[in-house]
């Protein structure tokens, strides 16, 4: 699905990612955990194609194509989805119009006709239920005036509508109460198939109780310093990040 090799990236000349290697196959869920400032969000931004980041070394192959060569919109049309840590409010653009445009641009890219209005509405209704999103929110401006929980649910709703092959969930649990976390996780789990994959970026272990990963990676100082199964997350939760930091700061010293 995606193969990241020796990925280096910097922002304003400061190196943040210092050689990431990661292989994600269809059907897998990978969790990336790490302390603040370790480069978690930079990784998701670089994969989604945010311009502020400069890739200085390495390669990313996504479904057989060079991801880093593609414009952000083409990455999305190829099946990459980033659930934003801080979804952007866009006053004046209705959620519905936004989603219809997104869906139809993806379809045009795939050589398909625009979706029929009726089919679109059916799809909206079906997917809204999945994340228990109030129908009224769909007609409002994108994320405008949404609560933190509503914004995150809206991200998963968009994911359900666009049906990506690889979804990166960037701290989707931040700002969620327990009930909202359950709803979001249910949505994510329902959408999981053998043909798609998730990269779940999180600071805390609690999300991984709901979305159970096949692999857990610890990101520290721009590198994946440790990988393991889901038990690694529990170990991390018990020890705390300081333990990890100490361990690797000694190695690096």
């Amino acid at each position: 699905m995606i193969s990241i090799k020796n990925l280096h990236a910097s922002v304003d000349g400061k190196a943040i990612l210092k050689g990431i290697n990661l292989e994600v196959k269809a059907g897998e869920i990978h969790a990336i955990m790490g302390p603040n400032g370790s480069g978690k969000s930079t990784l998701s931004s670089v994969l989604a194609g945010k311009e502020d980041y400069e890739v200085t070394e390495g390669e990313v192959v996504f479904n057989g194509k060079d991801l880093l060569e593609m414009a952000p919109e083409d990455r999305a049309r190829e099946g990459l989805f980033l659930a934003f840590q801080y979804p952007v409010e866009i006053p004046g653009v209705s959620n519905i119009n936004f989603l219809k445009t997104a869906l139809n641009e993806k379809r045009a890219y795939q050589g398909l006709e625009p979706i029929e209005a009726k089919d679109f509405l059916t799809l909206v209704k079906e997917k809204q239920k999945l994340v228990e999103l109030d129908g009224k929110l769909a007609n409002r401006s994108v994320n405008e005036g949404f609560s933190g929980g509503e914004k995150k649910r809206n991200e998963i709703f968009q994911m359900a509508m666009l049906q990506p092959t690889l979804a990166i969930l960037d701290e989707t649990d931040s700002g969620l109460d327990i009930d909202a976390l359950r709803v979001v996780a249910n949505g994510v789990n329902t959408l999981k198939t053998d043909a798609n994959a998730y990269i779940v970026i999180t600071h805390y272990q609690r999300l991984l109780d709901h979305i159970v990963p096949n692999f857990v990676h610890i990101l520290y100082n721009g590198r994946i310093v440790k990988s393991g199964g889901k038990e690694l997350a529990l170990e991390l939760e018990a020890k705390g990040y300081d333990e990890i930091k100490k361990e690797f700061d000694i190695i690096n010293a």
Partner: protein
Amino acid sequence: MLAEKTNTAQQIMDRLSHFAGKVDFMSDATLTESLRCLENLGLPTNKHEDYKYCNLDVILKREFKNIEAPIEKTMDLSKFKLEDTITLVMLNGQFNETLSDKTVLKGLHISAFSNLQTHEKNKLHSLSETNTDAFVALNTAFSGSGFFMRIEKNISLQIPIHILYISNSSTETLANPRNFIHVEAGASATVIEHFVSIENSKTFTNFLSEKLIEPNARLTAYTIQDGGKQSYAVHTNQVQVNRDGHYDNTTITLSGQTVRNNHNVVLAGTNGQAHLYGLFKINDTQLVDNHTLMDHQVPHCESNELYKGIIDGKSTGVFNGKIFVRKDAQKTNAYQSSKNILLSDDATINTKPQLEIYADDVKCSHGTSTGKIDEQALFYLNARGIGKESGTRLLLQAFMGEVTNQLEVDSLKHLVEQRLVYLND
């Protein structure tokens, strides 16, 4: 402060002088006075503070002639017409009754200036001043036959009146269209003033509208400026709102090489309200200059202004909003905001709020913002598969929506939104 009198202004006067005195609906005294004022004032250049950013030289240097348009009996107006409205036609500055709809609406009276009763003739010119404004003087001296619209006391017009101001000329033409809209006490109406041209006519339109809103009356006016690439325009609206009266205007500039709007509102009766909205989307070397004057003369009035511009290419936008709160106008609420998006490095916006407040118990505020397309928002759209072009279009539509949503006539809103999408593409 008098503007410098220019040679070009003098030339215009010379060229037009044989038309003066033919305007039979103005008294001789008014005509003589306006000619004298025009001569004294001269037409303003950009040395005049109020016209600092608005270079009208380009207009004045051209050979605009005041032609007496042939009275067209037939003309295909279908592409300009709006569903569910009543159409009135002003052709090259002259009211054209033949082309106008003859629908009779209870309480609506429309007559050409030449058919007015004396007491109505006396109303003309009662709201505007020739001795300080050269364009008002020019219009007064040379205007063709406009129309007087009166909405009878306590009548609420259910159908919007669509006034088409059409330029149709293959030569450079000066048109001085004019009207007076009188909304009597307790009455209400919606008018759409729609400026268009046939085959991109080269016209300088010097428009003057006087609007009188009597106690407890309401006027919603939409101004759509779409005179084409070779059009030049100075539009003056002189509005008076009396006690408990309500005036709403939305001015949308769709085309025009140089467009100057002088929107002057006098809040003359307590509890009066005025809301002005403006939107322009320009490119190339276009210039759109919105000047507003909100004159709070009495207590307990409210005014609100929002002007938005999208400025591309080497074009220039101007917003100058003056709020004048007189000594007696306590408890005034006055707000003003100008928001702009610059789409190119060569695009310019000049905004200037001017608050002159002589009362001490008032709420007045103004704000201005100028920026580029929101990169965060655009990336969010891109990340969902929406390309740069359609993403930008969505964001601009959203930006404009705050103004276009003011258009409460569906056919008009549809027309304007369609035009805005494909403008400058």
